[in-house]
């Protein structure tokens, strides 16, 4: 047998590398057959399928003798080729319902041809100029800038019902409910800004705040909002605040903005 397939791991005692059989090197039995067929050095269309079958069977036999494990695929192919071989050698029975042996052989030859053709196609495909290797796209694409703008939607009906809704609600609320006294932070800030405008020197906060108060509830609200607003303004640096001791009256003083100083 003149086939010589490389094997990665050659046994140390083996002196005949030509006979190293590596079934793993093949992409299945068809690939092995194709390799064997190529050895016939003839056009695949004119290949001797009988000779091919014999070579395949000899190859498998060799591998078995060398105690290689052979995948089931290869053995199935071997069995099929053994069958084909016997059919090719025996005269065709008259009322045989099985396909003609020559048809089977032709089908095999066709499959080998097709595999070879697709291999050649694959080869020429990967050897084409390829994007990113031989062909290059624009390296510095200029992105499309997407500017989003909003188109606001509202209908006149929406607008009018919103108006009526709140006016109605509010009017009703005025009639029925005694509103709880609230001094919003905004109001407190406004008042304190006015005060701070005057408070060039230390000014007691409480008397001022109490001007807003009539009743205990209001007093509490004013104190809370006032203090919160004061602290906010201190934080912003527009006001200084001073307290002698816990629960003592608060004194405030305007602080000039650094830019103005």
């Amino acid at each position: 047998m003149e086939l010589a397939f490389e094997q990665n791991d050659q046994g140390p005692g083996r002196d005949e590398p030509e006979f190293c059989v590596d079934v793993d090197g093949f992409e299945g039995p068809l690939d092995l057959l194709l390799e064997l067929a190529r050895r016939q050095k003839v056009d695949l269309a004119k290949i001797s399928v009988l000779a091919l079958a014999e070579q395949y069977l000899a190859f498998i036999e060799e591998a078995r003798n060398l105690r290689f494990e052979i995948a089931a695929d290869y053995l199935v192919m071997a069995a099929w080729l053994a069958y084909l071989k016997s059919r090719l050698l025996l005269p065709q029975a008259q009322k045989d319902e099985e396909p003609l042996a020559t048809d089977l052989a032709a089908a095999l030859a066709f499959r080998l041809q097709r595999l070879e053709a697709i291999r050649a196609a694959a080869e020429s495909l990967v050897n084409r100029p390829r994007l990113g290797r031989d062909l290059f796209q624009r390296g510095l694409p200029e992105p499309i800038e997407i500017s989003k703008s909003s188109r606001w939607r509202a209908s006149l009906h929406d607008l009018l019902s919103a108006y009526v809704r709140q006016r109605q609600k509010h009017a009703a609320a005025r009639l029925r409910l005694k509103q709880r006294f609230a001094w919003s932070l905004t109001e407190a800030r406004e008042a304190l800004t006015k005060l701070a405008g005057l408070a060039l020197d230390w000014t007691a906060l409480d008397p001022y705040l109490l001007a807003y108060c009539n009743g205990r509830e209001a007093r509490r609200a004013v104190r809370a909002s006032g203090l919160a607003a004061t602290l906010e303004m201190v934080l912003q640096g527009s006001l200084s605040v001073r307290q002698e001791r816990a629960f003592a009256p608060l004194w405030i003083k305007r602080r000039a903005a650094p830019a103005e100083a």
Partner: protein
Amino acid sequence: MAEVARLFPDTEETKERALFGEAMRIAEAMLFAASEPLEESEIARRMPDGISVGDVLARLKQDYSGRGVTLVRVGNKWLFRTAVDLGWLLSKNVVEPRKLSRAALETLAIVAYHQPVTRAEIEDIRGVALSKGTMDVLIETGWVRLRGRRRTPGRPLTYGTTEAFLMHFGLEAIADLPGLEELKGAGLFDGPVPQGFCVPQPRDDPALTEDEDPLDEEAPEI
């Protein structure tokens, strides 16, 4: 060699022209594929012998002038860039329809009917504080504008509606906003009309009212 060139001037010239053409192709491809502007020296390194990179780039720049893409030099680097006048191709304006929040809609309605109106007055009518964002949104819609400042302590800003407002809501004039009777007629009240409910006569005259001052020169704090 020089003598030979003199003997066959055409051949030499043709050869040189071909070489120059090849150099231009090389520079063009390099500039096209580069992921950042290319140093002139970088391109020079790939030029065929005897070809000046400066000449090649100058010629390439000229070839591309007036085209959709132009070759520009930035310092010592070169790059292809979309022609300035075609910048519009690279921007896409996406218009997103958006709905006004309930607070914004209510505020807008108050501005429409009660203008010129201050933030404090709006808050008074709505009974809740107005978040900063609400007024910003309304100004962004282009339907509400700053008019001036109320001539009261604190000089609060006054708001009014714009012509765009009229246009959007299909009003010919602000006076076309329905009055109380019309609102009732439109079935917008659910239940009886509260006592003392009145609808002011809105006006969006650009002229300031008696108690309005013009906006300050400084940036207004909205």
